[in-house]
C-alpha cells in the first residue's frame, strides 16, 4: 500500500475560476492516474470527473493535465504527489464536427505510440 497526495480540479462552470480540491488516498500496487481518479470519484468526491474509454492508451479520451503536462491518464503511472486537471480546455468547446476536420490534438501522441501488436 502507498499514500498518494492529489490536488484535483473540478470542472469549470460558467466562467468561474478552476477550483482545486485535495485528497489523500491509499492505493495497492501499481496504479494509473485514472485508477486514482476513479477511486476518488467513487469513494471520496462524486464531483471529481474524468472521462475514460479504452483504458489502454489507444483512444486518447482520458487526456488530462498532470503536474503541468498533458498525459493519458489510463497509461500513466500515478506519482506520490500529483496535481491533476482532468478536463483539458479543448474539451470545453461544443461543436458539430465535420469528418473532414479530424483535429484531435492528442491524436499525434496516440498515433506516435501505436505499436502493431496481434
Amino acid at each position, binding site marked *: 500500500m502507498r499514500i498518494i497526495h492529489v490536488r484535483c480540479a473540478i470542472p469549470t462552470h460558467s466562467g468561474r475560476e478552476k477550483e482545486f480540491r485535495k485528497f489523500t488516498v491509499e492505493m495497492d500496487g501499481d496504479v494509473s492516474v485514472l485508477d486514482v481518479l476513479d477511486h476518488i470519484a467513487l469513494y471520496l468526491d462524486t464531483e471529481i470527473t474524468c472521462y475514460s474509454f479504452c483504458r489502454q492508451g489507444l483512444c486518447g479520451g482520458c487526456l488530462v493535465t498532470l503536474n503541468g503536462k498533458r498525459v493519458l491518464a489510463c497509461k500513466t503511472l500515478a506519482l506520490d504527489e500529483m496535481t491533476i486537471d482532468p478536463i483539458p480546455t479543448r*474539451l470545453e468547446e461544443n461543436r458539430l464536427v465535420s*469528418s473532414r476536420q479530424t483535429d484531435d490534438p492528442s491524436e499525434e501522441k496516440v498515433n506516435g505510440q501505436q505499436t502493431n501488436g496481434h
Partner: protein
Amino acid sequence: MLSTKLETDVVVVGSGGAGLRAAIEAAKSGDVILISKGPFARGGASIMAGADIMLDGKSLHALNLGGDSEDSKEAWYRDILVEGFELNDPQLVQSYVESAPERVKELLDWGMNIDPESQYQRAIITTGFDILHSLRKKLEAFGVDVLENTMVTDLLSQDGTVFGVVGLDYLSGEVFSIHAKSVVLATGGWHELYAYNTGSDALTGDGVAMAYRAGASLTNMEMTTFCPNIIRFPLAYSGTIFLYNFPGQLLNNRGDAFIYWFDNELIKLAQTTEWNKLLLSYGTALEIQNKRGSPHDGVYFSIKHFPINLLEQLQTRYQWKGWRFQGMDFSALMERMKEGEAIEVGPAAHYFEGGIRINRHGETNLKGLFAAGECTGGLFGANRVSAATTEMLVQGAIAGKRAGLYANSLQHVPETMAIQQRYEGELTRWLGQKGTTSPRLLRRDLQRDAYQYLGVLRDRRGLETALSQQIRYLNVLNDLKVPSHRSLNKAWLDALELRNLVDIFKLVARSALAREESRGVHFRSDRSMMDNENWLCHLVAHRCDDQLVLEKETISGVQALRFSNHLSYENAIREAASLLRG
C-alpha cells in the same frame, strides 16, 4: 423544453467498424449524421481489436494472401454453425460468409495496412486501428456530419416506426433531437455490465436498451463470451488482453496447472484454437468457484519455466517494441514475471453473441430501424469463434445500404412534438436529482452482481437472486445523486448509462434463467446438458405493455441435426471438435 433539432435522411449511432461502414454506404444515397458517444471512431471496442479479418480460404487464396484453395464458403458456413452449436441464424451466417471476401477486398483497395508475413487459412492480419483508419479516410470523401461526445439516449418512435433519435451532448449539456427517415444502430456490446470486461467504458449496451424500450425484438441475450487471462492486478494493467495469447501456465492458488485435469482433446482445443476463450474461461471459473483462485478474483499466470530466448523471439514475431503492446508498456510487469512472479488473471466479458434481432438485410422488426455489428444477435449462435471484425464490416455495409434505400423511399418524416418532448423529459429527469446514491457506486454494485450471477457459471438460484437485485436497482435509479449543472456533468451521463445497464441486466438474467440447458458460452451448473430436443431454438425478447416477454422461436432453415440430442456440456464441445475435424 428548449432543444436543438436537426434533420437528416439516416442517423448512424456508433462510430466503430460497423457504424463507419454503415455511414459510408448510407452516404451514397443521402444525408447522414454519424453520432459518437466517445472520441470519434475510437470510443468502443473496434480500436482495441488485435485484429484478424476472416473470409473463406478459397477467396483468400484468390487474393494471393495465403488462404486455402481447397476451402470453400460452404465449408466455412458449416464450421460456423458447428462452432455456434447450431444456434446461429442461418440467414445471417449465409450473408456473412457470402459478403466477407468483398468487404476484405475493398479495405485492401482503400489502402489498409496488413501484415503480409502472416499467412492463415481463413484470415488476414491487421489491427483495429488500421481498419478504422481506412474506414475514416473513405468516409471523409462523403462529407458525413459527425457528432462527437454525444450520447443517443432514446429512439423517437410511434406505432412501430422509428423516425429519429434524442440525445445529449455531454460536454455542453445540450439536449437535442434528430428527425431522420431511418436509424442504424451500431453501438457495440454491453461490456460495462460486468465488473471485469475487456471493453471500453462507453460500451453500456445503449443501442440494445433503446431498441428494447422502443419495442424491438432481441435474441439470445443469455450468450456472453468471456475472454480468459485478462489481467486482474495490478490495477494499472487490469482489463488488458496482453497475456491472452501469451505462452505460459495457468495455475490455481496451489500452483496446480489445472487445465491438465481435462482430457487431452479439450486441452489441445484450449491451447491451440480459438476455442481457448470458452474453455479457459470455463476452467478458470471452476477453479475460482472451488476456492482455488487468487485474491483479486482470478487465477495465476506464470512464465517461470519459459525459456528467455524463446521469449525474445516472441517480441520479434509480433513486432513489439520492447514489451509495448497496443497503447501500454508492460516492461515492468514482464520484469516481475521473468523473475518468477505469477500475475493474477481471470475471465472478463469480451463479446456478446446476442443482441438486436435483424434479418439478412439488417432490418429490425421496427420500420426505419436497422442494426449492425456486435449490438445485433444471432450470427454466432451460442459461441463465437469466427471474426467479429468481419461481422461489423458485412453487417455495416448491408444495414447502411438498406437504411439509405428505405430513406429514399419515404416521402416525409412524421412530426410529433409530444413524443420528442417526452423523450427529452426522460433524459433530463436525472439532472439535479437529490438522491443518496452516487451513480458510480450503483454501477459498481450492478457490475459485481452481474459478474457473480450472470457470469461464466450460472445457476437458477443465482439468476433468481440477480433478478431480485435488479428490482432494487430500478428503485435506486430514482434515488441517484446528480449535480444540476449541465456542462461536463459526468454523473448525469453515468445515470443515463445506468438506465441502459439496468434494462440489459434484466434481459440477460431473464434469458439465462429461461434457457434451461447449457450450450456454448451459456453454462448452467443446474442444467448442464445440451438439450437439442427442447432448446435448439432462439430465445427472443421484446417489451409488451411494460413487461419483458420471452419466446422460443424455431430456427428456420436448419438442416439435419448434427449434434446428438442430449450431451453433457463437455461432450458437446468434444462433438463439436470432431465435427470440425471431419
